[in-house]
């Protein structure tokens, strides 16, 4: 991403412990441009907390972001932190409004990197239409962090037409995935130290709230459940849902949308794309009757142009997710016992 805001001229080029002390250096860091960059009427009050006005039912979510490396193909930890909480709120059927933003910075982080992350945060907030209204900055000693950790929490108002919940899932529901799977995880892996490989794979990190709002406004309660398959990928999310609702889920390998390069990278590294993380993707359980029109509508949106119906909720094999392989065989999808580890050969 290109820097659209020039970095302020400072008399320090790395962040040190003093910048998190709450004293003069902290103010110097924040006044140097952080507040200006993220400025809005609520944040500008600079009070201990934010004064918010919200009406009706609200959704509230929080997430912490630690990614290595912090800059990766297709994004950086800053926009990931905004999009992550925006999307979690969108998955509740809410319109995200306000976010908090907390940094835990490892001393030694170049100010130029911090600035680039902040600019990404600003841009991501503008795109998603949310405001950073409160925040915090702490600095830890070298070796006690990994460059920068970010936490965002957010609130949003629930769309009155939405009724999202696992309890709404019915036998016959169709399962839509909004785009190509496994891009984020493979983009990160392609630049991870020791595992680098040449590719043009980009993270899919993006905000999904507008796209989801559009669907909810048009199809309301025909959308039974929304969820974003981040860590653990599509397989883990579906297995969690099957376990929690006691329904069976069938998915079809031939329908799984995946970019050719991502699929090749997964093959080469011996990873199963169904378990690889996504950051700009959602899964929707929708009524059987409206599935086709919902899919058509979603595919008109840039965030959903690769969307596909990947599966069905079934009465058979309750709590089990069964995948029909490309050649028509069947296998059960389970949760991974831990991180997916690359195979030897």
């Amino acid at each position, binding site marked *: 991403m290109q820097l659209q805001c020039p970095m302020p001229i400072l008399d320090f080029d790395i962040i040190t412990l003093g910048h998190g002390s709450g004293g003069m250096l902290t103010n110097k860091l924040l006044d140097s441009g952080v507040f200006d960059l993220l400025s809005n009427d609520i944040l500008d009050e600079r009070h201990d907390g934010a004064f918010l006005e919200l009406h009706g039912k609200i959704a509230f979510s929080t997430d912490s972001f630690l990614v290595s490396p912090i800059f990766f193909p297709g994004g950086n930890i800053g926009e990931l932190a905004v999009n992550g909480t925006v999307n979690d709120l969108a998955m509740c059927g809410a319109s995200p409004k306000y976010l908090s933003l907390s940094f835990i910075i490892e001393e030694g982080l170049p100010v130029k990197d911090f600035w680039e992350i902040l600019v990404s945060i600003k841009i991501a907030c503008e795109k998603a239409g949310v405001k950073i209204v409160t925040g915090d900055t702490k600095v830890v000693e070298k070796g006690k962090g990994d460059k920068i950790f970010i936490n965002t929490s957010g609130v949003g108002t629930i769309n009155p037409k939405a009724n999202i919940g696992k309890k709404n899932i019915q036998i016959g529901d169709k399962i839509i995935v909004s785009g190509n799977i496994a891009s984020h995880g493979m983009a990160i892996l392609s630049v991870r130290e*020791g595992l680098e490989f040449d590719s043009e794979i980009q993270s899919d990190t993006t905000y999904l709230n507008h796209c989801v709002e559009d669907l909810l406004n048009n199809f309301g309660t025909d959308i039974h459940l929304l969820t974003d398959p981040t860590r653990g990928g599509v397989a883990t999310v579906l297995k969690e849902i099957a376990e929690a609702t006691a329904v069976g889920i069938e998915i079809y390998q031939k329908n799984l949308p995946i970019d050719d390069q991502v699929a090749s990278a997964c093959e080469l590294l011996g990873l199963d794309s169904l378990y690889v993380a996504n950051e700009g993707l959602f899964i929707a359980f929708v009524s059987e009757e409206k599935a086709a029109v919902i899919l058509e509508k979603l595919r008109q949106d840039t965030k959903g142009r690769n969307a596909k119906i990947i599966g069905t909720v079934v009465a058979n094999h309750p709590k089990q997710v069964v995948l029909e*392989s490309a050649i*028509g065989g069947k296998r*059960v999808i389970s949760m991974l016992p831990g991180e997916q580890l690359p*195979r030897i*050969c």
Partner: protein
Amino acid sequence: MKYLSEYRDPELAKKYLEEIKNTVSRPWSIMEVCGGQTHSLVKNGIIEMLPDKITMIHGPGCPVCVTPLNLIDKAIHLATEKEAILCSFGDMLRVPGSQKSLLQAKAEGADVRILYSPLEAVKIAEENPEKEVVFFAVGFETTAPANALSVVHADRRNVKNYSILASHVLVPPAIKAVMDDKESQIDGFLAAGHVCTIMGNTEYHPLSTKYKVPIVVTGFEPLDVLQGILMVIRQLEQSKSEVENQYARIVREEGNLDAQKVINEVFEVRNQMWRGIGEIPDSGYAVRDKYAGYDAIRKFDIFIDEAPENPLCISGQIMKGIKKPYECSQFGKTCKPENPLGAPMVSSEGACAAYYHFSGMVEI
């Protein structure tokens, strides 16, 4: 995906399955030697699609599963006590040693790194001259050339702080051990395509002649495996026992001579312990004396007492095809991927983990 989707064609798969059904007239047991093929069988749901008369038996070809417990303990010792940077292929990390796994050692602060290439470990050694860097060189003949090359490369660049903890296993002696076991009832083999890519097919002719079994060198995609099974069945039905090459698009009769040369430069054949099976004569590679300085065992002179295996684990019988994972009293109960009693439950190529993850159609 070019070169892959062609081998996953559902219509062709149907034709192969039909042809297998039409060919088979009585029960046959076929062992796929390689863990990669086990993975493909279960991942694609092939086992359930085969006629009942065909029983697939998952062989000992999972390098993670057969690496001796004692060697894992040594790797952990190097990482924790000797404070070496221990580099490894990913799926070795979760394998339980007698006390802990490498993953647990890493969580406790040991410098354990996942790599795809041993050459990367040499680079790490060059970048960290004050540290010892050890690559955990496990695998069949397939990974041996790269591991050997890392030693040659380190030697050429005079990287003295690099060594390998070698535990290489060889397929032909394993086939021999399986056939020599009185309890084994294997009628035919799918040999490991990638092992043969390196070593060629010549070692398999004496085996098929001696034991009167068909051996088909087979690839890993669903159509490869189906075609390999069909070729074995055709031979069995005609009472033939020959070596055939299903994976001809990759495997040459003589193998990859350059790769064999680098293996022979660094390694020599020795007796090898196989976890769960025991010692098999001439079934592994040891680092030659010429490169003793790159052999972690000799370099660090580590001795660790042999720890006993969990007596409830029947992994040896599983890997020799005598028992199926679900015939084990511990399968899915005390032994699960998150808490494995033995190695076949760890790697996705291990027969037990493969059954646990993918074949849950049978209620556990």
